[in-house]
């Protein structure tokens, strides 16, 4: 399978994972290792970036794992930029998953603020991965603003509803010049496969793994599903057939 490249960095795994909602940090570590994920998002609200003994960070110290700090909790561009800069200073990481969702209930992104923050952070040297609604126009604007990838949602965060935004994701994937990571709402390995078959460059899974009865086995299931979906995409799925081809009533006059 082709490697994925974001901002010059090469990833063998196209499964990104989150770190929230696990029953313990050691279970989180085991599940993430089992998933093969190389890009793992951590919420700045949950980790103490200034402490060497932070328990979440301690469980993520593996050479294979790259951290992707996220700004979940901020309500506007200004707060997001400030948080990203502090994280860069403390962790020495200039990648940021931009999450600006002022609505704490459905955690839907504020496109206007996300675009503004992407502009500022990209100019400031950040590798910006913005989480957004599956809005094709916004994705193109984010690309122009310097986003290193776009992360449209499949369904509301934590809803496990699958690709509710399928038609819009299809357009985003078709138009995008930067990698498309389907983030949020994927509840089953089959959802992840479907996203990959459609041509998404990667998926990000958190709740579906963390809230499973057996997170480690579920992580493996997602790993396999992402690989299967990607392989199918690269092998070019045979087109669905639209009925029989016995006669050619429209073109028979040509023969």
């Amino acid at each position: 399978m082709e490697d994925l490249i974001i901002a010059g960095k090469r990833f063998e795994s196209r499964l990104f994972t989150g770190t929230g909602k696990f029953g313990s940090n050691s279970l989180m570590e085991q599940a993430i290792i089992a998933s093969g994920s190389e890009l793992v998002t951590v919420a700045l609200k949950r980790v103490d970036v200034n402490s060497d003994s932070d328990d979440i960070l301690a469980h993520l110290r593996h050479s294979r794992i790259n951290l992707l700090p996220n700004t979940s909790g901020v309500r506007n561009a200004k707060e997001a930029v400030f948080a990203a800069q502090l994280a860069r200073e403390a962790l020495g990481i200039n990648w940021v998953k931009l999450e600006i969702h002022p609505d704490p209930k459905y955690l839907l992104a504020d496109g206007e603020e996300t675009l503004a923050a992407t502009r500022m952070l990209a100019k400031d040297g950040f590798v910006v991965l913005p989480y957004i609604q599956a809005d094709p126009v916004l994705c193109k604007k984010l690309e122009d603003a310097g986003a290193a990838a776009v992360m449209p949602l499949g369904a509301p965060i934590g809803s496990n509803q699958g690709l509710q935004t399928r038609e819009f994701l299809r357009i985003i994937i078709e138009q995008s010049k930067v990698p498309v990571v389907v983030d949020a709402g994927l509840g089953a390995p089959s959802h992840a496969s479907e996203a990959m078959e459609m041509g998404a460059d990667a998926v990000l899974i958190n709740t579906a793994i963390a809230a499973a009865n057996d997170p480690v086995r579920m992580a493996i299931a997602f790993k396999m599903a992402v690989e299967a979906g990607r392989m199918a995409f690269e092998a070019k799925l045979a087109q669905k057939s639209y009925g029989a081809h016995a006669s050619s009533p429209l073109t028979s006059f040509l023969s």
Partner: protein
Amino acid sequence: MFSDELQNISWEHTSQAIAAKTAADVEQALQKSKDLLSVDDFMALISPAATPYLEEMAQLARHYTHMRFGKTISMYVPLYLTNSCMNSCVYCGFQRSNHIERIILTEQEIENELKVIKELAPFQNLLFVTGENPRDAGVDYLEKAIQLAKPMFNNLSIEVMPLDVDEYARLTAAGLYGVVCFQETYHKARYNVYHPRGMKSKFDWRVNGFDRMGQAGVHKIGMGVLIGLEDWRTDVTMLAHHIRYMQRNYWKTKYSVNFPRMRPSENGHFQPNVIMTDKEYVQLMLAFRIFDHDVDISVSTRENKEFRANIIQLGVTSMSAGSKTEPGGYATYPQALKQFSVSDDRTPQAVVDDIRNNGYEAVWKDWDLCLQ
């Protein structure tokens, strides 16, 4: 303002409607609970008709909690800054006419308390509690306390008298994250039986305090009723109306609920009018989770350790531990009068062990000051 909305909700009709709920109403509410339920559905879930459905409700509540919060319990600790109070709440040990030693912690004492709390456990969520004493423990004092705590705690909340919009905004700018305030009871006609004098006797000022918090952009608002005053089913239904009203109007704010069950007060005079059984408490907690998948449900050390251990999987999402409910109780004045006696006096570590044994992670940090 919510006081206007509340005028259109009849206490008596609500009580009757809850009593009239049937098994069919309960089943209908449960069936559609994947989506946002109405207050009418909530009334079915807390009604006597729902009692046979407790196990089914528990399964659903646990599922929704896992989806939204995961297997985590957020830990917090209260710090009582003062027991001085101008109010006369008939059920409270801090009421003005009680002849007890009144303490207002000095800056040095606050710092000492904070240090001792940090030695107890890696707490990041701190709740300042005061009586109502705007002259000596008002907004200036609270702002100072916030400044003292900021270097050590990432998430600062207050449980104090209702304030003005400007005052909430000022404290938020200083680093405040959340405000907790219990309406105690939504029964307006009976409210003054319990709160006869002082600022707290003004029902509308208190109930509209939540609007003021929302207008000031407070990040998280904690709401609740005191179980033991009026019919709990009707009171929590009013709370359900209130929370929906708040969510519609102040959509950037997070909400938490808490249902403190009244325990015997230090003055020995007031005994609860209503006793809520453990089974009823669990029913209420499950119903609230099914009604609102995202609301933070907090259970304090008022509840005993056996009960707290048993409810970890039933929808609770935040817990206090190691709490002292007297000002200076951690370091300065460990013998002062408590507001209420703590039932779960285990160390934070023992509480956390219990949480882990249930397969849950105790979360100390769920906010960072750099985000606000």
